Structures are given as structure tokens and as C-alpha cells.
């Protein structure tokens, strides 16, 4: 299978490049189960190349999902294991990485926007529109009320210090970049991520 071909390149000169990793070639299906007492559970699975987002080793992981993205299916990840091609992890994973499946499918995953109204003791499910409208309103009111154009010394500062933002060190660069762009455009300075702690 493809994985094997690319793995060998650790020991030979070669530049298979993109080809070796194209999702199409990743989608190998092992020969049908014949000899094992237990059904081989990966037969025909769709394999997606990904990276573990726990620590900073950035291990390669392969996500095995049921469903081939056909219009009538909702794909579901049912197995995760290491990507043997990855130069650092070479297929291995730590206990957290090995347990990624239960993170992806955890009972604690959130599925709907919710609000906890002041003083109450429960979550209330709301629509995305309601959630975003209400938050945007809060932001604008606070920004308009507390935006500082000039400090006491009379020098221009143009900052907004009464709303803060903690960014996620597990989010992608793309998310992070967009966050940075928006946050600064609003004049926010109270802004950090896990790198601070």
C-alpha cells in the first residue's frame, strides 16, 4: 500500500512529493478478511491524513471513517492510528493520541449554541443567529462605551481594554490569523493564548 512505498523513502533518495500523500492514494482498502477470528475492522474505511492537536510533536494520525462522502452518508470516524509516514512519529502515538477517537466522539462534545442567563442555574439552547447577534451587541455596546482614542497624556492610543480575548493554542494557523486580524481591527489589546501560561 502507499504508506509502505513512502515509508521506504526514509532510506532512499527520492522525491515522491505530493503524489505519495494524495488522499486518493491514501484510500487503500486491505484485502478482505479471511483468516482472523475477529472481523478486520478497517476494510474499506476512508483514510484521512491528519495531525494530533494535543502536544507540539504534531504526530501524524490517520483517521479512519465509515462512509465515503457519498451524498447519502454522514461520515463517522471510528478508528484513529498513527501515520507511519510521519518523520517524527513514524506511526507511534502517545496514550492521548491513541485515545483520540474518544475525544472526537466524546459525550462532552458541544453540539448547539447555548446561553446561561444572568443569575440562572441552567443552559438554554439558542440558535446561532441569536447567539451571535446577542454577543455582537454586547461587544458593540461595550466597545462604544469604553473605547479609548486618547490617553490622559493626550496621545492617541485607539484601544479597547474592557473586553478581552483568549485564543486557542490548539486552533489552526488559519483560525489564529483570522482571530488576530479581527481582534486588532477592533482595537483589542487584552489578548493572549496559552503561550502566556
Amino acid at each position, binding site marked *: 500500500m502507499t504508506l509502505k512505498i513512502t515509508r521506504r523513502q526514509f532510506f532512499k533518495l527520492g522525491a515522491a512529493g505530493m503524489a505519495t500523500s494524495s488522499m486518493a492514494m491514501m484510500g487503500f482498502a*486491505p*484485502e478482505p*478478511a*479471511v*483468516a*482472523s*477470528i*475477529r*472481523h*478486520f*475492522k*478497517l476494510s474499506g474505511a476512508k483514510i484521512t491524513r491528519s495531525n494530533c492537536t494535543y502536544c507540539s510533536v504534531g504526530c501524524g494520525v490517520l483517521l479512519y471513517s465509515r462512509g465515503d462522502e457519498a451524498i447519502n452518508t454522514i461520515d463517522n470516524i471510528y*478508528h*484513529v*492510528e*498513527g501515520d*507511519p509516514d510521519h518523520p517524527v*512519529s513514524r*506511526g*507511534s*502515538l*502517545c*496514550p492521548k*493520541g*491513541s*485515545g483520540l*477517537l*474518544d475525544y472526537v466522539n466524546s459525550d462532552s462534545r458541544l453540539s448547539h449554541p447555548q446561553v446561561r442567563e444572568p443569575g440562572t442555574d441552567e443552559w438554554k439552547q439558542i440558535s446561532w443567529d441569536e447567539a451571535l447577534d446577542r454577543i455582537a451587541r454586547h461587544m458593540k455596546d461595550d466597545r462604544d462605551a469604553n473605547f479609548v482614542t486618547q490617553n490622559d497624556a493626550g496621545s492617541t492610543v485607539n484601544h479597547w481594554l474592557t473586553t478581552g480575548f483568549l485564543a486557542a493554542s490548539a486552533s489552526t494557523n488559519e483560525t489564529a490569523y483570522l482571530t488576530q486580524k479581527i481582534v486588532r481591527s477592533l482595537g483589542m489589546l487584552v489578548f493572549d493564548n496559552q503561550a502566556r501560561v
Partner: protein
Amino acid sequence: MRGDQINLQNIVARSASPAPSPQVRDGAVETVTKLIDVSRCIGCKACQVACSEWNDLRDDVGECVGVYDNPVDLTPNSWEVMRFNEYENEQGNLEWLIRKDNCMHCAEPGCLEACPAPGAIVQYANGIVDFNSEHCIGCGYCVAGCPFDIPRISKKDSKAYKCTLCSDRVFHGLEPACVKSCPTGSIMFGTREDMHELAETRTDYLKSRGYENAGVYDPEGVGGTNVIYVLQHADKPEIYSGLPKDPRISPMVEAWKGVTKPLMSAAIGLAALTGFFHYVAAGPKEVPPEEEEEMRAEEANEGLSRQDLNGQDRNGQGRPSDEEHRP
């Protein structure tokens, strides 16, 4: 689907099956072996999680009992556990000995010998000893049979479970899940030959780092195992959370399951036959007819009334007794 896919050609031994399994092909199949180098283990439990993930096992969330070990022991839902031991060596230096405990896949498996259910435990030509839950009857004999205390009976379905060395993966050309996950290369997998070669290299390395007693754990008592350890102190395996020094199938199990099994069976059959032929030869033991006659006559002139005996019967005095009246 489970249980119905065994390719019998790959099986060299089958529990409780008097007829030998096909043996011819085994030469063609390489024996696989899992090497566990304890000196490289950091006890991260990646193998534990990978095992449960692959085998769709979810054990109970237990509690901390004051050690790193968790789960603290093997269960029907945890087919391998890490065992931690803080050991102070001769030089007074601390060593944290962490051993991955799971099925050893013995060449002569005690579980298989003890199992009464045909085909519930099989040994493949590649050396893997596997449980076929489909045929398991939950008698627990495998537990008694195992010299390493590995199999566990599930309360859920009363079936025995243990590490399969990911037979399903291995049959599909993959390594076992634990092996693949191991971050430090403490767990290695390959042909028996290659693993023993590697074990030698690792042992030499350890010796070069001052562990004179480093060695390979591959106990002969069970005909060798397809899961072998590299130990820094091969001279005292027991310090690795009680790894048996010289494991073998218990003599009790031998006495119970060994040759005596057929012998007893034969003896029983024989006994029945003996009875039959004795009857043929000696014939039944009967009361001679003349004695019957004589007795009838006596009864007549004694004029024994039936009521009396009935009477005796009724007020229970006719209870059998074996009193002797004469010296």
C-alpha cells in the same frame, strides 16, 4: 460475523480437539514475536489505550489506589496493563521498573491445554494463541491453566478474554496495535528470529551500560513464548512486579488435563465392558428354584397371616435392621 472466519489451515493447535489440526503448512508461516524491552519503557500506557481502542474495549473508570498502575489489574476489558515497581538496586540507585503485562502467547499454552471446549482456544501457525469467544463456554479452566494469570472471565457474557496479539491485524499484514503505538520503541514486533536477534543486541547494549545481568525472558517451562522481555535484571524477573522466574503449566493442571484424561476415560469404558463380559461368563446371581419352593412350603404351614406383615409395615417395625443375634 465473529467466530466464523477461522481459516483452519492456519491453526496448528485447537483446544479439546483430539484430531490434530492441519500441520503441513506451518513451515511456510513465520512465527511472529513481540519483544518488550523493559529498559526502554516509560510506562506511558499508549499501548494500553491503543489496545483498548483497537479491540473496542472500554473498561470501567476506576480509582487511584496510590500507584501509577491503572487499571490495577487485567480485566475482561483491559487485555494489558502496565505494572510499575520502584526498585533500589545493589548500588542503592533507584530504578523505576515498568512492565507491560499481557498474554505471553506460550508455545505450549496452559490455557489451551486446560480448555474443554473444542476450538475455543486456538494456536495459529504464526504462534499466536487466540480465544474464540464463539466457542468459549466460560468454564474458567483457561484461568487455572495459565501459568501467567492472564485470562479473565467477563461477568457480562461469561466468556474468557485476553490479548489476541491483534491476530486480526497480524493476519492483514499489520503489527499489533500496542506495538505500533509504542513511542519509545520498547515494544517491537517481527519474526521470532528477528526479535531474538534484536533482543540480543539490546541485551548487549544494556550490558555495555553496566547491567551485567541483562538478558532475555523466554521461559522454557512453557516451551518458550512469542512475547519476550528484555530485562535489565534477567536473574530476578520477580522484581518486575512478579514476573514468574520459571513458569510452567502447574503439575496439578497436568494431572487433571494431561494423560490422565484419556486413561480415565478408557478405564471407565473398560469397567463397563468388564461388567458385561462377567455377566456373559458367570451369568446372573439368582436364588435357586428349590429354595423358592421350600420357602413357599414353609410359608404355607406357618400359615403366616399377611396382615401381620402389613401390620409391621404399617407401624414401621419392619424397618430393615442388621442386628446380629448370634455371636
